[in-house]
């Protein structure tokens, strides 16, 4: 295979027109030949910057070095020392702003396609039946992990490798957290990827108990005092969806992105053989500009709707990954930028019949450093839609903080935890991920789960 060392080996994707009508994965990934060719572009820096850009510090040159030789199993074992979810991260991490942003190759030419190589390694290992290596001996100590999303799975996996007896408690009927209910099938296949990575964590000896709501069925104090756990990690995720507070928001046809995505991803409403319904809509507006907004928009598109993204700032400020925005545009999603909803119009039967919006322009930078959008007077117009999906982020779920005495929360009601160790104000209780930071990314949650596993190990080794 001929390779221009300045350019990355292109990755195959489903054609936009084809994929806009199915839920199959958009990106098809590298085959072995392509992966080895791309791996050969890595110059194996002595002082690798990419590792510093990775929130879980994967030995990136290490695994790419093995891959260059075609050694998939060796490459996989290098990654799995650092990450429990490589097939997930290879797909959903914002590599362009993390590891790949620091790649020396990127100074003159394309950065090495680290994410796609990670994905290939994990997929090839799974197909070959290669499993992560289990701890040889157990240390007799029990840790409870609350939530089976990226933070919880990572924390549980790391602790199990150190010999801890780990049980994950999951409130929903299925493990995976946001990987199961939030991120759509076409970005992250559930059976092949998510379920398989959850199985890998279980193969390390981790037990997962679904249908247990901590804070309701059992409290953290009961886990510590009655069920014999020596430490607890809280990775319960973000929580309650936010709405705008504009008129008409409770009309039929207005959904949170969480609801729309949960119906489609977790409850599989897009598949008629599942009982849960979804009101797909024929003209849909998704309000917001993050990755979740892109996921909701692209789901609605696949369910047959014409879809607009309505975002109050400009394209430059879109918080979503560039790749997601690019994919969304390719598939035919219309971006109404510098536009903000002011009212949802409702018909006599309580259904959405339109949305009034106002044009915005960018003013002075606000506290986030982004230029603040201000309304353009007299620019109101009506968008003809029958469905509105609000994707404005979430505020923390009070289930755990309100039932755990001595657990401090900050003014945004997020759990307060040390960044380095995950330690909270309550002895033996650690936390990380969206429950601490508010809605963020899969990999940041994994980084926090990893830090907390280290913190818990130090605490229980004293």
């Amino acid at each position, binding site marked *: 295979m001929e390779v221009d060392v300045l350019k990355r080996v292109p990755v195959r994707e489903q054609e936009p027109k084809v994929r806009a009508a199915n839920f199959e994965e958009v990106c098809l990934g590298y085959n072995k030949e392509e992966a080895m060719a791309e791996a050969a572009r890595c110059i194996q820096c002595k002082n690798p910057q990419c590792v510093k850009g990775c929130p879980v510090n994967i030995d990136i040159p290490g695994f790419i070095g093995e891959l260059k030789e075609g050694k998939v199993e060796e490459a996989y074992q290098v990654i799995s020392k650092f990450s429990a979810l490589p097939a997930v991260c290879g797909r959903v991490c914002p590599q362009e702003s993390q590891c790949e942003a620091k790649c020396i190759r990127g100074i003159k030419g394309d950065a090495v396609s680290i994410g796609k190589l990670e994905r290939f390694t994990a997929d090839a290992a799974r197909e070959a039946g290669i499993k992560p290596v289990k701890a040889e001996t157990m240390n007799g100590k029990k840790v409870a992990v609350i939530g089976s999303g990226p933070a919880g799975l990572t924390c549980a996996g790391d602790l199990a490798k150190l010999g801890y007896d780990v049980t994950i408690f999951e*409130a*929903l*009927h299925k493990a995976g957290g946001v990987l199961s*209910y939030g991120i759509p099938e076409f970005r992250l296949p559930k059976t092949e990827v998510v379920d398989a990575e959850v199985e890998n964590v279980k193969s390390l000896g981790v037990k997962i108990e*679904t*249908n*247990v*709501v901590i804070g*309701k*069925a*059992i409290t953290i104090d009961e886990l510590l005092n009655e069920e014999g756990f020596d430490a607890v990690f809280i990775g319960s995720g973000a*929580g*309650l*969806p936010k*709405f705008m507070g504009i008129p008409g*928001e*409770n009309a*039929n046809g207005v*959904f*949170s992105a*969480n*609801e729309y995505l*949960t*119906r489609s991803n*977790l*409850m*599989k409403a897009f598949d008629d*053989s*599942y*009982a*849960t*319904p979804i*009101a797909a809509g024929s003209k849909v507006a998704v309000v917001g500009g993050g990755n979740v907004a892109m996921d909701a928009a692209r789901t609605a598109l696949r369910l047959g709707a014409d879809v607009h993204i309505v975002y109050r700032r400009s394209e430059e400020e879109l918080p979503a990954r560039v790749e997601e925005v690019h994919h969304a545009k390719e598939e035919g999603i219309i971006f109404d930028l510098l536009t903000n909803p002011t009212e949802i119009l409702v018909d006599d*039967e*309580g259904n959405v019949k339109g949305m009034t919006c106002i044009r915005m322009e960018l003013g002075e930078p606000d506290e986030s450093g982004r230029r603040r959008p201000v309304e353009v007077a007299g620019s109101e117009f009506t968008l003809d839609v029958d469905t509105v999906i609000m994707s404005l982020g979430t505020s923390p*779920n*009070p*289930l755990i903080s309100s039932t755990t005495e001595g657990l401090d929360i900050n003014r945004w009601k997020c759990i307060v935890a040390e960044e380095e160790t995950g330690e909270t104000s309550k002895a033996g209780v650690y936390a990380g991920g969206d429950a601490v930071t508010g809605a963020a990314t899969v990999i940041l949650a994994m980084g926090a789960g990893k830090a907390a596993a280290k913190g818990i190990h130090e605490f229980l080794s004293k």
Partner: protein
Amino acid sequence: MFKILKKEYLANNIWLMDVEAPRVAKSCQPGQFVIVKMDEKGERIPLTVCDYDREKGIVTIVFQKVGASTNEMAEYEVGETFMDFVGPLGCASELLDLTEEELKKEKLLFVCGGVGTAPVYPQVKWMKEHGIDVDVIIGARTKDILILEDAMRDIAANLYIATDDGSYGFKGNVCDQINELVKNQGKEYTRVIAIGPMIMMKFVAQLTKELKIPTIVSMNPIMVDGTGMCGACRLQVGDEIKFACVDGPEFNGHLVDFDQAMQRQRMYQSEEGRAVLRQQEGDTHHGGCGNCNG
């Protein structure tokens, strides 16, 4: 997996089941609910807790056949299992926060209708166990569709039955019965707890607002996860948006926007109707859309 230990037909398409669910039984309180998912492809169905036995690890649920999923649920037999059964969810009745002295000062009236009689039962039972006498009204269209009458009679200080057609007890609806008790018999109540169809709760709340009796209602909007994640169950309560699953299900009845809540409950009516048709007609089902001339 959660095993069905008992199944009993009550009336009017309403069924009672005892389900083995030790974690839920250990911690549930009156006012809370559970979510049942029958199998891999099933919906998550929210149901209020009717009773529980902490020692035996049993939770009693009561449900009415109102759609495809509850029709299917009624086909489950003793010994079979539900794949998922999660709870307790929501907040316990706020009455449980009162001290015994505070409760003793209260004169409580529970008003229930239809399948809503089931979630009232554990609240009245809890009161009885704590030495608090309460009055209960059960309303029904007609005698044959009453449920839990005997069970309720055992624990209520006074049980009033009101039937629309007068086939049993007082002739009239629950509001007429409240008027009869308060206006004609001069009974005084410090609080009303109304649980039943939304339309019943709406009219009870309207009446008790006039009568100036604080009123608690239990809302049963559409839900998906039931843990505060999706916001499908949001309600307008006064000038605030509340999530029934984490802020409720019980709310101040004088503040709930019932018309909006009823409208939101109809959100999936056409999808639900199609699902029932599919169930009844099997492979011959054409969707009933009227477009295919089938």
